């Protein structure tokens, strides 16, 4: 049980850490897809199957494609995708900040009397989840739908080139 969690955590944290340190943006994006897939595996391990498939659909499927398109649309030169190396002082500061937050949170986790294990899994079926979404949480579901619609329309408005048809020679 815990061995599976350790393997998942190793893949998740390892690929995320390497992705944040690489200079090639495409390699970073592909490693982050591995990390998101490992997060989906964690959800499966914890018994939240529906959430695991939602994670695969949304992150591994959709967000990764949007990220790859953004990387390819904003590259500086056609062949060279490598970024300038991070300045040493800045990398050191970020590492210190991250380790400090990690130390504080580890201390808090280890010092808190959390409920012991051996709780039975909650046993949630997709049918129950759907009934909850359509019944108790119907208003929240509608609001999330409106947020997604507005955000995607806003994204199109932001990214579209509205000046191009009027003055094509201005570009």
């Amino acid at each position: 049980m815990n061995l599976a969690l350790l393997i998942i955590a190793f893949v998740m944290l390892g690929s995320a850490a390497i992705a944040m340190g690489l200079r090639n943006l495409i390699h970073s994006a592909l490693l982050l897809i591995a990390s998101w897939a490992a997060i989906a595996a964690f959800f499966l391990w914890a018994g939240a199957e529906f959430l695991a498939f939602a994670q695969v659909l949304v992150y591994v499927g959709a967000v990764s494609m949007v990220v790859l398109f953004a990387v390819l649309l904003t590259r500086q030169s056609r062949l060279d995708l490598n970024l300038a190396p991070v300045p040493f002082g800045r990398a050191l500061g970020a590492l210190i900040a991250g380790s400090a937050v990690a130390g504080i949170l580890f201390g808090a986790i280890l010092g808190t009397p959390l409920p012991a294990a051996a709780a039975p899994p909650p046993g949630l079926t997709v049918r129950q989840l759907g009934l909850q979404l359509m019944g108790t949480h119907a208003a929240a579901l509608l609001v999330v739908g409106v947020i997604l619609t507005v955000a995607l329309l806003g994204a199109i408005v932001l990214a579209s080139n509205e000046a191009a048809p009027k003055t094509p020679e201005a570009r």
Partner: protein
Amino acid sequence: MNPLQLCLMVSTGLFCIGLAGALARSNTILVLLGIELMLNAANLNFIAFWRYGPPSTPATGVLFALFAIAVAAAEAAVGLALIIAVYRHQKNIRLQDANTLKG
């Protein structure tokens, strides 16, 4: 060590990797991806507490994480559209060069 602590430590690690990445890198896409990692770490916490925490109604944690994923997807779409808009103005997406909003 009980499993809840182990899950919380994994999500803490993911959060701190995302934080360090968002602070260190100067490419806007990588900063956005670091923020996405932090949001995912929050989802891991929701699921860890849903699975091992004090008993509650059976769907609470999953519903919370589901809504968080939906909002994070909207945030990623808007963030990447902003990056493309900035690139069109500056021909560059380094954060140091994008410190003014005046086109």
